[in-house]
């Protein structure tokens, strides 16, 4: 028996529906159909009236979730793809993000964003938007990389009074499996040391955690380098304590992410490490992101657009040779 990443998301929603009458699900094709990725399969039957199909109206979907949250509910909104949240952008960044600051009334919505690239998905079904939403005060942005985190962080996101963008990586949906949900007790907002090492630190999140570990394994095998991998888990807030402690141990930093190269998580982490822990660095920090184009469609191009174990190893060798 094993459970996949997307199953964990489904089970978390089932648990939430079971435990908390304030929870309901809203999204396109999530009811009887169970969602484009089957993340809500069977839930409509088990919880009638609490798993609702929405029209193709992302702006209204977010607005309605916000209204229901103001009125005491805990909606979980499924975007069919993260990319379509661009249509609900205004409600997310201007209504949800500002409401608590303006009125003192929190807006506990959780917006599930199926994120990241898969081969053949193209420019509009592959986007990683964590770097966009994290810019806005008032939003919490979480990016689970493991099966247990997918479960646990969804439970905690819904428990949080603030609006959460829950970025789930489509590439991990069925590929990532665990024997069972087994959480190590880290709360939302804390990073995890996924792999210990002492020669350099890779700070990353979501699917790239696995690519980083692959690269680290390879560097160890091939050259004996011991690379530490930090999984941020939430990109806003950022757990700088864990990041700085790791950099203090290793003296070398690569930040790694799948979103576009200008700004974003990798820039924020480098900027904060350099401002807050400049003296810890023995070498210039490095960044690795996707390329500065839309996500290409053809798998040949896609594979070269995002960071890979190969490109991570190249960057790490440069970093280590400094």
């Amino acid at each position, binding site marked *: 028996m094993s459970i996949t990443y997307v199953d964990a998301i489904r089970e978390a929603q089932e648990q939430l529906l079971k435990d908390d009458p304030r929870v309901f699900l809203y999204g396109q094709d999530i009811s009887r159909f169970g969602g484009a990725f089957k993340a809500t399969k069977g839930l409509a039957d088990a919880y009638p009236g609490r798993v609702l199909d929405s029209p193709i109206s992302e702006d209204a979907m977010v607005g309605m979730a916000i*209204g229901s949250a103001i009125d005491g509910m805990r909606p979980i909104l499924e975007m069919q793809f993260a990319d379509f949240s661009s249509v609900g952008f205004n409600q997310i960044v201007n209504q949800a993000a500002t409401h608590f600051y*303006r*009125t003192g009334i929190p807006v506990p919505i959780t917006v599930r964003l199926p994120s990241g690239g898969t081969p053949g998905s193209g420019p509009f079904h592959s986007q990683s938007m964590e770097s966009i939403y994290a810019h806005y005060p008032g939003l919490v942005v979480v990016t689970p990389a493991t099966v247990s985190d997918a479960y646990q962080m969804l439970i905690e996101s819904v428990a949080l009074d603030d609006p959460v963008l829950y970025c789930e990586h489509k590439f991990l949906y069925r590929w990532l499996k665990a024997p069972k949900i087994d959480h190590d007790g880290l709360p939302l*907002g804390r990073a995890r040391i996924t792999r210990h090492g002492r020669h350099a630190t890779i700070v990353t999140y979501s699917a790239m955690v696995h690519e980083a570990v692959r690269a680290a394994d390879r560097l160890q095998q091939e050259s004996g380098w011991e690379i530490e991998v930090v999984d941020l888990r939430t990109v806003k807030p950022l757990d700088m304590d864990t990041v700085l402690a790791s950099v203090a141990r290793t003296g070398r930093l690569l930040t790694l992410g799948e979103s576009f190269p200008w700004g974003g998580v990798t820039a924020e982490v480098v900027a904060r490490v350099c401002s807050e822990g400049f003296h810890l660095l023995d070498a210039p920090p490095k960044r690795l992101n996707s390329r500065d184009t839309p996500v290409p469609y053809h798998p040949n191009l896609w594979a070269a657009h995002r960071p890979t174990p190969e490109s991570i190893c190249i960057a790490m060798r440069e970093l280590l040779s400094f």
Partner: protein
Amino acid sequence: MLEARQLETKLASLYKAGKIVGGVYLGKGQEAVSASLGGSLKWKHDVFAPLIRDQGGRTAFGEDLLDCARTYLGSVEGPMRGRDGNIHRGRPAEGLLAMISHLGAAVPVVTGMLLARRLKGELDGVVGATCIGDGGTSTGAFHEGLNAAAVEKLPLVVVVANNQFAYSTPNDRQFACEDLYDRAKGYGVAGHRVDGTDFLACLRVIGGAVASARAGGGPQMVVANLLRLSGHGEHDDGSYVPDTLRAGHLGQDCMDVARQQMVDSGYATAEEIEGWRSELEDRVQRALAKAQQETKPDPWHETWQACSQNPALPFEA
């Protein structure tokens, strides 16, 4: 509605005197529409999302004068504590939403609140209402929100105050249908039309729409035709509105019409109304005076926290 006019007249002169923090947007000429809506709703029971010209509706719904005075005069005691201002004020926990500027954005939010009531089993006899301008009907938010409310058959009342202009833009640059009322059918919601300068008609039609929604008749859309009798904001002289329009039927002041209607129907005498007016003027004056003396927001006492307290999260300071 009389209170609203008194209040706004005062705000306009305070604005001219430079005493107001930020802009002033008035509902002059739109009080009959707005107050008919607000007055049909119950405080802490229904939901009301006013827009920029809804002082009339706010007052009628039950908003405290002081909330208004404090926000305009920058008192930290106001409901927004200086973080947001004037027409953006609200008390969401009491059912009075605090608008964001983006037009149309309130439509799905009210809808969502009604959906919450249904899910909680508390929808019975509840109405959610919002106003929007002719210009606001061109937003995707209006369309998506109204459509979603119609699909859910929720008791949403949308009042379109068609004051013929969106800022300076006339109706013919805003939409091409003959009457915005024609849109109701396309959403599958009940449609109504009313002369927004006629107080009794507003009471009847808007009150009727609210009653229908309350009784389970599903979403309602009311289109009220009128003119605003002020500029877009107090910085604007509204000179793009043709004199012929001002001189015509839509240009009549709903307050004058209402006064006449009350007198004619024997609801009140001219003297009684004058009495109310001076009493209200007094109340307005007192509220403004109180607010003016209160403390202003102070950055050193501001928490600067956009997220609600959550000790479990290592939020950045």
